[in-house]
């Protein structure tokens, strides 16, 4: 029986291959994701442990509370005087101090050197202990006074070399340095496209405004001293605000942020692989169902020869199992190619990921194969049962249909129940009380899956109506071919429905994303226009890095500037919870306008040493009113008590403010190297070309600062969202490609099934191009059905999510929806190319003899 199944597959190569593609793509994505992230993981591990090879212990500053990674907030530095004390300990052989910070390299053209959104890292290096340096010297010499070492990859990309001059900007204006050497980060050229700059300690301290302070001390113990003992000895003399770890622990700590990023990347990409597999399941299900219907006579003959129902079911399942296994194995290995491709792609967009060879772990093999095989198996269960219902008499009698299953008459109620359950799951996930993130995600994903399945089932009864409407233009203007196409699309509602369903899922997700993004943009723009009443905004070139406060100070000196208001942000501990707080300088009173519940806009300029303002929600949650005290703990461990001077009502798009906002003066006293996220400028004469030029001139010493009009500012802030959106579109396109194969498959099978019919049409005078036209039109109708249902579903799903997030107002993405509908037509046309050609090639005579 197994041999029979295998021979059967071999006899249906084309459809088996087309069906398998649906699995291959999903598995490739899953396997590629694992290979990519595992490879990055291993490379990073190697980097971080190589950095601390000679280090027995490290001393670092300690923040007063857990800082979330990527918040931009760093632990405060500690006094340099600790270093000689540590060096003097009996078991310590050597103790080297270091500082780190953001160091922006400025090219000869005066422009800052950035690759994508990658960071610009600066370090101090100690020429006497190269083994203690994070950087390894590749060429030239370690830097002395007035010198810098830069990474080899920046050097090669920007054609820099030893002996040349380069500008560096850290906290203050640009300083010129001579390149003394080229370096690597540990063993790799660079990480994530970051630029690297190394200085001697006093230079670095001056640049990063950490004179007399250190971020880290690296300690080497005397021979024979255990690391544990060394750490114990150091811990005894540590002042508050510092901590000691072994070198290995420090490596793990440094790797934490990247590890979190990698695991995020892993799950993010996996999600799209799984979506593609889910869509693939529909394609497999549909192809198998059609194939079974077409094999009715063959299966019935088997039954007359004594095959039992179980044997028939088994043969279908074995067939899918074999196909699923082969497809999964192919996908598994294609994943390796995908990972290589992704490494190249990331490199090409300036986000170079470390790569020390592809990692192909057992987990990758097991998970990829299992996922692919299980999805195929699940998709084949219903068709396998359908096959058992083929009656033996179908072997001898024409036109015997497969009896509907026991539950067929409950199909619509079952579909309705599944859909309702799906929406219930979504609702519970979104609005259920006290759910943690995992549960929310679980309910939402489960809900969506059920909704997709339910809607796919429910759409079958709508097919005749939909094909009638969508086929109308073709039938009206396309003549007989158009009318036939319409009737063909409608004559097997179940088949058309499940073919369209695969596309429906992709389009629903794309629409969901587009609606969310559109709504965010709309609401955000509204909020900016409401809050921001200045003329210009000053931000970093990449639109999000904080910039030195000196830039705002320089802008304030420019002629014609009436007011400059800046916003700083960072992590604090408020009411026992780590959260973002903000600080404003008095100038914001003139450039920002808030809707005050208590107090007035004057509060912005009058916060003083201990004033604060909060938003309405926060005030309500913690029972605050004007005059209430709020305790804020800063990263350095100091706690200040601030008095509420105002409460504001933020616009629905949110405000630039954190939970508590205090004055910049109070903030700067507690935060190491404070920076602005944005500065807003009000100028005499408003937005004019002359004013823009004046501001640009004033900011010339800060090449990383950028002047934007209000409109440009909104545009720039949104641009990040747009690139994320593009990435999402590309990833979702994968599932649309899978559904494309689904449509191709259905069409090929339909053409095959209608060989006689098409032959007859050709014989009575249908031309080749009419035949092609007929198939193409049928394909377009099918994909438009998928698109329409998908778009409606996507908008509904987005509406639900927006209902949950009260910061966003719903806005309908009209333009995108039109684009998606056009894209669906293109998918239909594309899918029809091959099947239409096959249909047109049918020789009328042979087709009529076809049996």
């Amino acid at each position, binding site marked *: *029986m197994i041999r*029979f199944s295998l*021979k*059967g597959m*071999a*006899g249906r190569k084309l459809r088996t291959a087309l069906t398998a593609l649906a699995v291959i793509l999903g598995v490739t994505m899953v396997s590629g994701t694992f290979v990519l992230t595992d490879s990055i993981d291993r490379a990073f591990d190697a980097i971080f442990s190589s950095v601390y090879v000679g280090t027995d212990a490290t001393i670092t500053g300690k923040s007063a509370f857990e800082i979330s990674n990527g918040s931009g907030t760093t632990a405060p530095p500690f006094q340099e005087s600790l270093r000689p004390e540590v060096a003097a300990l009996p078991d310590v052989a050597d103790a080297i101090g270091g500082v780190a910070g953001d160091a922006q390299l400025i090219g000869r053209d005066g422009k800052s050197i950035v690759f994508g959104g990658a960071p610009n890292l600066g370090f101090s290096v100690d020429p006497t202990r190269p083994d203690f340096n994070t950087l390894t010297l590749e060429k030239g010499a370690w830097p002395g006074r007035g010198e810098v070492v830069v990474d080899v990859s920046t050097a090669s990309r920007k054609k820099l070399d030893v002996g040349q001059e380069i500008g560096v900007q850290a906290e203050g204006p640009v300083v010129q340095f001579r390149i003394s050497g080229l370096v690597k980060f540990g063993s790799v050229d660079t990480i994530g496209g970051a630029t690297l700059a190394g200085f001697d300690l006093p230079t670095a301290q001056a640049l990063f405004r950490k004179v007399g302070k250190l971020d880290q001390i690296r300690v080497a113990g005397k021979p024979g001293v255990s690391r544990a003992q060394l750490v114990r000895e150091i811990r005894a003399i540590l002042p508050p605000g510092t901590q000691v770890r072994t070198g290995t622990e420090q490596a793990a700590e440094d790797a934490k942020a990247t590890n979190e990023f990698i695991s995020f990347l892993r799950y993010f990409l996996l999600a799209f692989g799984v979506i593609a597999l889910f869509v693939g399941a529909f394609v497999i299900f549909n192809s198998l169902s059609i194939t079974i219907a077409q094999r009715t*006579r*063959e299966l019935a*003959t*088997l*039954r*007359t*020869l*004594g*095959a*039992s*129902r179980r*044997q028939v079911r088994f043969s279908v399942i074995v067939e899918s199992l074999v196909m699923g296994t082969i497809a999964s194995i192919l996908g598994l290995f294609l994943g390796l190619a995908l990972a290589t491709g992704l490494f190249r792609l990331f490199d090409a967009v300036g986000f170079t990921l470390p790569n020390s060879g592809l990692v192909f772990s057992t987990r990758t093999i097991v998970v990829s194969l299992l996922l692919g095989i299980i999805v195929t198996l699940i998709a084949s269960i219903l068709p396998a049962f359908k096959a058992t219902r083929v*009656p*033996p*008499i179908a*072997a*001898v*009698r024409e036109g015997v249909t497969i009896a509907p299953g026991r539950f067929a008459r409950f199909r619509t109620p079952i579909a309705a129940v599944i859909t309702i359950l799906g929406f219930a799951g979504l609702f519970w996930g979104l609005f259920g009380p006290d759910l943690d993130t995992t549960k929310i995600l679980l309910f939402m994903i489960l809900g969506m899956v059920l909704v997709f399945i339910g809607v796919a089932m429910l759409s079958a009864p709508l097919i005749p109506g939909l094909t009638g409407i969508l086929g109308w233009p073709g039938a009206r203007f396309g003549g007989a071919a158009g009318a036939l196409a319409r009737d063909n699309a409608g004559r097997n509602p179940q088949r058309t429905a499940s073919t369209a369903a695969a596309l429906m899922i992709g389009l629903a997700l794309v629409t969901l994303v587009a609606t969310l993004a559109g709504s965010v943009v709309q609401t955000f723009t509204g909020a900016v226009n409401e809050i921001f009443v200045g003329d210009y905004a000053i931000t970093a070139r990449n639109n999000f890095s904080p910039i030195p406060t000196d830039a705002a100070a320089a802008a304030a000196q420019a002629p014609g500037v009436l007011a400059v208001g800046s916003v700083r942000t960072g992590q604090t501990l408020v009411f026992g919870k780590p959260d973002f707080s903000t600080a404003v300088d008095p100038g914001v009173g003139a450039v920002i306008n808030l809707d005050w519940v208590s107090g007035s806009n004057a509060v912005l300029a009058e916060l003083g040493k201990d004033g604060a303002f909060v938003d309405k929600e926060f005030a309500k949650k913690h029972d605050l009113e004007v005059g209430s005290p709020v305790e804020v703990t800063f990263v350095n461990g100091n706690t200040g008590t601030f008095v509420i001077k105002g409460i504001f009502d933020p616009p629905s798009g949110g405000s630039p403010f954190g939970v508590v906002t205090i004055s910049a003066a109070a903030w700067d006293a507690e935060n190491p190297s404070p920076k602005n996220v944005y500065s807003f400028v009000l100028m005499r004469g408003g937005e004019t070309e002359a004013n823009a030029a004046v501001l640009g001139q004033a900011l010339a010493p800060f090449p990383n600062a950028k002047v934007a009009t209000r409109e440009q500012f909104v545009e720039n802030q949104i641009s990040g969202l747009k690139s994320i959106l593009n990435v999402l579109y590309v990833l979702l396109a994968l599932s649309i490609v899978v559904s494309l194969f689904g449509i191709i498959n259905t069409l090929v099978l339909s053409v095959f099934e209608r060989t006689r019919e098409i032959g007859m049409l050709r014989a009575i005078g249908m031309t080749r191009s009419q035949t092609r036209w007929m198939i193409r039109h049928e394909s377009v109708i099918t994909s438009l059905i998928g698109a329409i249902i998908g778009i409606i579903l996507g908008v509904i799903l987005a509406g639900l999510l927006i209902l949950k997030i009260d910061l966003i107002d719903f806005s309908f993405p009209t333009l995108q929806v039109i684009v998606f509908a056009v894209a669906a037509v293109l998918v239909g046309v594309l899918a029809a190319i091959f099947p239409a050609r096959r249909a047109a090639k049918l020789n009328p005579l042979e087709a009529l003899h076809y*049996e």
Partner: protein
Amino acid sequence: MENGDRAAVLVARDVTRRYGDGDTAVDALRGVSVDVPAGELTAVMGPSGSGKSTLMHILAGLDRPSTGLVTVAGKEITDLGDSELTKLRREHIGFVFQFFNLLPMLNAEENIVLPLTIAGVKPDRAWLDELIGSVGLGDRLHHRPSELSGGQQQRVAIARALVSRPSVVFADEPTGNLDSRTGGEILELLRQAVEEMGQTVVMVTHEARASAIADRVLFLADGIIVRELSGASAPEIGAAMEAISSE
């Protein structure tokens, strides 16, 4: 209808079959009783639409009668469930179809042994060689159906029907898709199976020439057996058909 010296392997009693209900109901069989003795070739004849195929489907357990009983090899089959019917087909029934119904991806030999493969029985090599020899397929065994002529395909189908030595082989218009010379060869084979292997065969046909090889011919008209001939020649059968059609 009784045949004295041989036991009946196939018995039908007062079988009726009605398709559909209400105004559009069609009575394809209206009370048919038949005894098919073992080791004989029984032909069923009649005008188009007289119920020949329906009768054969019911006798073979492919379809159920509306009323009446059918027993195969002493076992009543009218109320059997699907798995019992499957067992019945494996042990007692073989089919030869008008359109051959070979599996396109299997070669001739694989098609022939398929009923045994399905039943999980190892073919007896000697029997198989004898069978293949007798249907005259020796050199085409490893060809796919698409590489065989219609006559060759039907030979494969006959070997397939005989391979499990069933109690009855049913053949519905086995020559319907073949030219008369090839058809004659196929009929010869069926006759040979009866003579040499003692096989019981029930064959539906509307060709007098085909019925002439039968031991007995049953004539159906409008769902009832109207006449029966034993050992008749083609002209006699033709005349009988003529008479029935003109009634």
